[in-house]
């Protein structure tokens, strides 16, 4: 895996995004220029929020970058690792109306090799929780976006594979009804991959079976050209950002069942703490502390 080359064949990222993080209390004009250039080139646009600190209080920015780099570790830093693990932040940015953020996430994904079809699958995952409000942001963000045909394919962690069949529970979607036998098939699917059945599954099977089946009809047809692991990893990230323990548990268990490594899962969780706040890790401990303890 090469982590050094950017989409245009040049070095993608400068050391520490142009900042000398060994000296957090000072900054040079050269560091400021390099940091701005990094974001302009990597995101395709300046980042006014981070640039704010370049001018006003660089120390705050440097301590943030130190924190962010260590949060990600080897699990997804743009600077050291070009492998894609999911569409982290996409739903969060869509729901908070952050058009520039959605646009630069797509741009980064494409510069890392994602095709338009792969990105559209990622946006489909975001639509699960983003709904019409989130899609409004996405549509506006990409209204005049020029899709790239990547020269090199995207890289994913070892062992990740395209496997749309993995999502198939055996439900017959030619009928909207969910019979008892199909409810059993669905519970068996969760047991096979996650080892437990989320509480909403039997609840909806009992009270709103057609709704559950319609949800599965969306869910089981989201991923066809992306590795299957991308789906639970993306939903894991979103549920960390909103502090939703049931969603964290379901998707961490599924990611584990799909063969995601503990290091990659922790990298994705940690990265999302940039949005969730560090105390969000308390929710993680409550939701999946037992899973993490027994996972080597």
């Amino acid at each position, binding site marked *: 895996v090469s982590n050094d080359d950017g989409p245009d064949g040049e070095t993608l990222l400068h050391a520490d995004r142009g900042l000398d993080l060994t000296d957090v209390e000072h900054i040079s004009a050269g560091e400021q220029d390099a940091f701005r250039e990094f974001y302009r080139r990597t995101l395709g646009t300046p980042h006014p929020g*981070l640039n704010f600190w370049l001018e006003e209080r660089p120390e705050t920015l440097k301590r943030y970058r130190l924190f962010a780099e260590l949060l990600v*570790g080897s699990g997804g830093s743009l600077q050291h690792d070009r492998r894609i693990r999911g569409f982290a932040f996409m739903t969060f940015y869509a729901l908070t109306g952050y058009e520039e953020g959605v646009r630069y996430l797509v741009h980064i994904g494409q510069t890392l090799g994602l095709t338009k079809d792969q990105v559209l699958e990622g946006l489909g995952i975001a639509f699960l929780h983003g709904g019409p409000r989130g899609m409004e942001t996405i549509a506006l963000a990409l209204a005049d976006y020029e899709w790239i045909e990547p020269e090199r394919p995207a890289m994913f962690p070892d062992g990740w594979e395209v496997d749309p069949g993995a999502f198939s529970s055996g439900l017959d979607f030619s009928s909207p009804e969910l019979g008892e036998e199909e409810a059993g098939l669905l519970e068996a699917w969760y047991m096979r991959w996650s080892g437990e059945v989320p509480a909403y599954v039997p609840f909806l099977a009992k009270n709103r079976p057609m709704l559950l089946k319609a949800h599965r009809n969306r869910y089981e047809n989201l991923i066809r050209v992306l590795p299957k692991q991308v789906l639970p990893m993306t939903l894991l990230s979103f549920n960390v950002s909103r502090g939703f323990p049931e969603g964290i548990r379901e998707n961490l268990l599924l990611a584990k069942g799909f063969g995601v490594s503990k290091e990659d899962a922790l990298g994705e969780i940690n990265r999302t703490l940039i949005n969730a706040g560090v105390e969000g*890790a308390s929710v993680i401990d409550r939701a999946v502390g037992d899973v993490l303890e027994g996972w080597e």
Partner: protein
Amino acid sequence: MSQTHTPNPDSKYNRTLGWGLNLDNPEVTTQEEIDEFRRVSAAQLGVQQDGLDYWLDANPEVLKRYRLWADTLRVREADESPNKYSATGVAIMYVYSMTGFEQGLKYGLLGANRTLTREQVLEQVALVFRYAGPRGMATMGKAAAEYEWREPTHPAIWPTGWGPDPDAFKSGADFSSREASSDDIRKILDWYDRWLGEIPRHASLLARTSPDSLKSYRARYENTLRLLPKQTEPWGLLQINIQRGFGAGIREGMLLGRAFGISKPQIVEALNWGTFYGGNESLALVDEVAGDVLDSWPE
């Protein structure tokens, strides 16, 4: 709407919310009241707030009942003053940042800079950044792009018992290296135990799974507040976590607030303002995760 830097002659409105409306009579509003509200709004915010202005025309009764409610959130004590500092600006700035409300941030900067220096306001923004991340800072960066900083004419007065105390945040960890030694982690966890009487689960989890991340977070945490009162830290932590429904953050904010000397009336005001965007029902979570802390608070 463009923002002006009109001097604010009505400091009496800094911490009251009637702004010329007769809140004792919600069902009847005169044109004179409406004109006065708009005049005060322009002086306080530099703009007409679009949402509030809407109700002036559509149904002033809704605005009056809202302002009656909001005016009760503040707990007024013997140290009441037009330029008394309120740390609630942290949580409100967080909401505005995360929801892309640039206009709100612009008038928030104007209001804060009325009593706080540029460096003090920047500390507040740095604290918000710890929660809001790049998404929130993107809004802030745009909102502040053309802001003209001023010297406050009436510097803030800290609430009774409050004051800057940067040393209170020091755990003793050695931040000259990125790697977290077992000694660094022990000192960080000891800091929580010393001030809170318990170790938050996020700290113990990160100590186990990502000690370097925990240490780098503490490097931010311990260097955020130097000029603003140390009580700003738990106040913001508490209110932001009330808004987003994170029980662990609520408990940590309550415990640290009590340890940092926030008084019972003051913490009640913090809880009240937490409902400003969290809704009254958010207090059920406060009671669940920190009711014992509030019940044992020194009177």
